[in-house]
């Protein structure tokens, strides 16, 4: 600021000013800036009206030493300053506080008419308002700084040439640098050059040129004081109204934790998905249930792995209706076409049974269920399952076959063998009855009747009649079950009954029977007649298997025992011809027989019966000659519910009829 020179030539209002000039004094008095003139000897030479008003000077102060004026005492080195100004002729400035007012005091030299510097003139510019606004600005700036420093995300301001100007605390902390060492450093040198990215430079330039707003950029593996981080950089152009300078505010958002969490979640959900897919695949495999989808418009068909397995098609092969048609049993093709046509026409749900004819000529039974609907693209799509129910269907067929076979077996095969037993059992006592009765008659008819002898023979007759009666009672018990019922059965007792009825057959075949029936065998819940049919079947098979054996005892061991804790097992070990070249596997097939008169159904029927009892029937070759057949069924508490098979037991009338023919 250039210093205004004031030349005092007279006295001021009421003051003694040399060469008083009223006009000038009047002018000075109109200036509302206090002006005080001080002589070389620091005495007050004069002052204007504003000095009197603002600084409280009075005419009496004229001629007093400036240091004695209280307001001027606030300018501590006033005398030295005045000396320097007077000596040098150069203005000086000082700040003065008077109460709550602030002044900037300009000290300028003043001359008299002879141009000699006569003293200094002090002008007091009131800067109180200005100073307050500065203070306010500083105050606000500190607040802003404090706020910015509390922002967790690092912020940095760049110059237009992308050099760092200043950052917030988070910024310096993140990169482990100080304000000083980064001032003026290009952003691209930060974080070991992590930001020296083409996707960053070009958009920043474009943004500064004002053509495009900046789109956030992700920077991976940025070296920071906290290790390698993943950051999202965003930038905003900064400008002040009326200023052409552009600056850039860059924000850093650390998404490392989120990325890691997402990665972990991805991994987790990938693992979960993989697991649930594995579960589904396993469930499909276990239940022999495949799934499929069919987009009706495009005929795009998709199968699950299990569906491929069921159709026995290479999973690499695309699924088409031609492929399906080729697999479907010829007798089911018309039905398939109907189902397809209906689904195309009506959508909706369908459920049907079908059969496949496999390349090896085997037949599979399928249960197909599908649900139609619109997928997320609004297209008609059918989603369904295809279950391989072959085993179930075969079991049902085997069961229904077994029902009729059993009736047949009971009437033909088993009853035929039983007849021999029954005949033997009944004929023995009948024979005794007749013999004793004959003897009795003869004893009584003698000239001297042998009454005691006759009494004895009658006693024996009654005994033998009772014996015959017991046989009939036993038969009645065995054949009284017209319908299948589940009851608690003592396997030992059931076995003993079968043995008793088979003794004749065993004797005829000269079989040495060795029963080894376990004590304290838990009861089983079973259909007694069916169970006995199985035992009888196994027993007769064993007996027959030994009928041609002459080089060793025809020994048959029947054992009962606990099995696997909660089951009961019966084994029938013979010393017969064994399985020979036929193998164990074939013997359970229906209609497989090695016997000239056999129907080949005994074992398959027996197996069906045992499986219906939640049990298992198996055969093994002995170490020595012969074979061992065995079945195990759960002990009574283990069998839930009734066995749902109705097998016609041989009618009692059949037995009576058979007996009548003997």
């Amino acid at each position: 600021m250039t210093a205004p020179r004031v030349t005092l030539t007279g006295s001021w209002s009421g003051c003694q000013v040399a060469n008083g000039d009223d006009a000038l004094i009047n002018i000075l008095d109109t200036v509302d800036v206090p002006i005080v003139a001080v002589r070389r000897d620091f005495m007050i030479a004069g002052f204007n009206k504003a000095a009197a008003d603002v600084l409280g000077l009075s005419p009496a102060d004229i001629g007093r030493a400036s240091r004695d004026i209280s307001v001027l005492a606030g300018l501590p080195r006033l005398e030295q300053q005045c000396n320097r100004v007077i000596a040098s002729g150069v203005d000086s400035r000082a700040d003065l506080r008077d109460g709550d007012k602030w002044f900037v005091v300009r000290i300028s030299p003043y001359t008299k008419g002879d141009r000699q510097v006569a003293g200094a003139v002090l002008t007091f510019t009131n800067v109180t308002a200005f100073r307050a606004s500065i203070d306010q600005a500083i105050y606000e700036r500190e607040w802003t700084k404090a706020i910015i420093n509390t922002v967790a995300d690092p912020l940095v301001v760049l110059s237009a040439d992308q050099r760092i100007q200043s950052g917030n605390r988070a910024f310096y902390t993140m990169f482990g640098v100080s304000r000083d060492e980064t001032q003026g450093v290009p952003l691209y040198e930060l974080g070991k050059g992590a930001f020296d990215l083409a996707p960053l430079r070009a958009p920043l330039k474009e943004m500064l040129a004002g053509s495009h707003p900046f789109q956030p950029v992700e920077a991976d593996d940025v070296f920071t004081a906290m290790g390698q981080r993943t950051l999202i950089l965003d930038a905003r152009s900064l400008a002040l109204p009326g200023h052409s300078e552009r600056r850039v505010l860059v924000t850093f958002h650390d998404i490392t934790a989120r990325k890691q969490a997402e990665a972990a979640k991805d991994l987790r959900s990938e693992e979960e998905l993989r697991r649930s897919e594995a579960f589904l695949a396993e469930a499909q495999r276990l239940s022999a249930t495949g799934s499929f989808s069919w987009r009706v418009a495009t005929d795009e068909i998709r199968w699950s792995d299990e569906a491929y397995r069921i159709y026995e098609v290479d999973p690499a092969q695309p699924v088409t209706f031609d492929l399906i048609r080729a697999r479907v049993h010829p007798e089911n093709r018309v039905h398939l076409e109907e189902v397809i046509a209906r689904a195309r026409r009506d959508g909706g749900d369908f459920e049907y049974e079908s059969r496949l004819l496999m390349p090896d000529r085997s037949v599979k039974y399928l249960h197909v269920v599908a649900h139609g609907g619109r997928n997320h693209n609004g297209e008609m799509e059918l989603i369904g399952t295809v279950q391989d129910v072959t085993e179930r269907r075969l079991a049902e067929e085997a069961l229904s076959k077994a029902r009729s076979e059993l009736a047949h077996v009971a009437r033909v095969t088993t009853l035929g063998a039983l007849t021999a037993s029954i005949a033997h059992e009944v004929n023995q006592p009948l024979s005794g009855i007749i013999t004793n009765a004959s003897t009795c008659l003869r004893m009584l008819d003698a000239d001297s009747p042998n009454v005691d002898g006759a009494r004895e023979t009658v006693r024996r007759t009654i005994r033998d009649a009772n014996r015959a009666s017991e046989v009939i009672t036993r038969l009645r018990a065995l054949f009284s079950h017209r319908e299948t019922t589940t009851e608690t059965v003592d396997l030992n007792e059931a076995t003993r009954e079968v043995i008793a009825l088979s003794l004749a057959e065993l004797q005829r075949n000269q079989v040495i029977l060795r029963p080894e029936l376990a004590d304290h065998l838990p009861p089983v819940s079973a259909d007694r007649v069916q169970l006995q049919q199985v035992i009888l079947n196994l027993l007769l098979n064993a007996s027959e298997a030994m009928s041609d054996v002459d080089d060793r005892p025809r020994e048959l061991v029947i054992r009962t025992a606990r099995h696997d804790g909660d089951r009961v097992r019966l084994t029938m070990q013979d010393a017969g011809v064994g399985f020979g070249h036929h193998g164990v596997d074939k013997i359970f097939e229906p209609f497989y027989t090695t016997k000239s008169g056999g129907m080949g159904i005994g074992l398959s029927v027996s197996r069906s019966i045992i499986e219906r009892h939640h049990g298992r029937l198996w055969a093994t070759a002995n170490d020595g000659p012969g074979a061992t057949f065995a079945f195990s069924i759960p002990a009574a508490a283990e069998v839930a519910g009734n066995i749902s098979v109705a097998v016609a037991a041989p009618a009692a009338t059949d037995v009576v009829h058979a007996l009548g023919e003997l």
Partner: protein
Amino acid sequence: MTDRRALVTVVDDDESVRESLPDLLRELGFAARAFSSAEDFLASDCVDRTSCLILDIVMPGGMSGPELQRELAGRRQLIPIVFITANGDETTRPRLIAEGAVECLLKPFGEKALLSALSAALRVA
């Protein structure tokens, strides 16, 4: 003529037969003995004295009737044999007769059939 003092021996594992048949045989005028197995009979003193053997076919645990028949033939003991059985079929009788048996009676048999068989047996003897 029937030799009423002839010894008829019964070999049968069934006790009631061993009880009742000898009694009837005695009433019919024969001497009678009974054994429960072929082995017991072979071990007895009756083998040489028996005029007719009434023999069961199936005797579990030991020698069967036909086996005893073969055994006796092997020993040149030509005793007429009448087989008795409770579970023979139509093939049993011809087979046994072909092997040298006099008769084969299916249980239960009457007095008449027994006498007829014994007559034939003793005639053979």
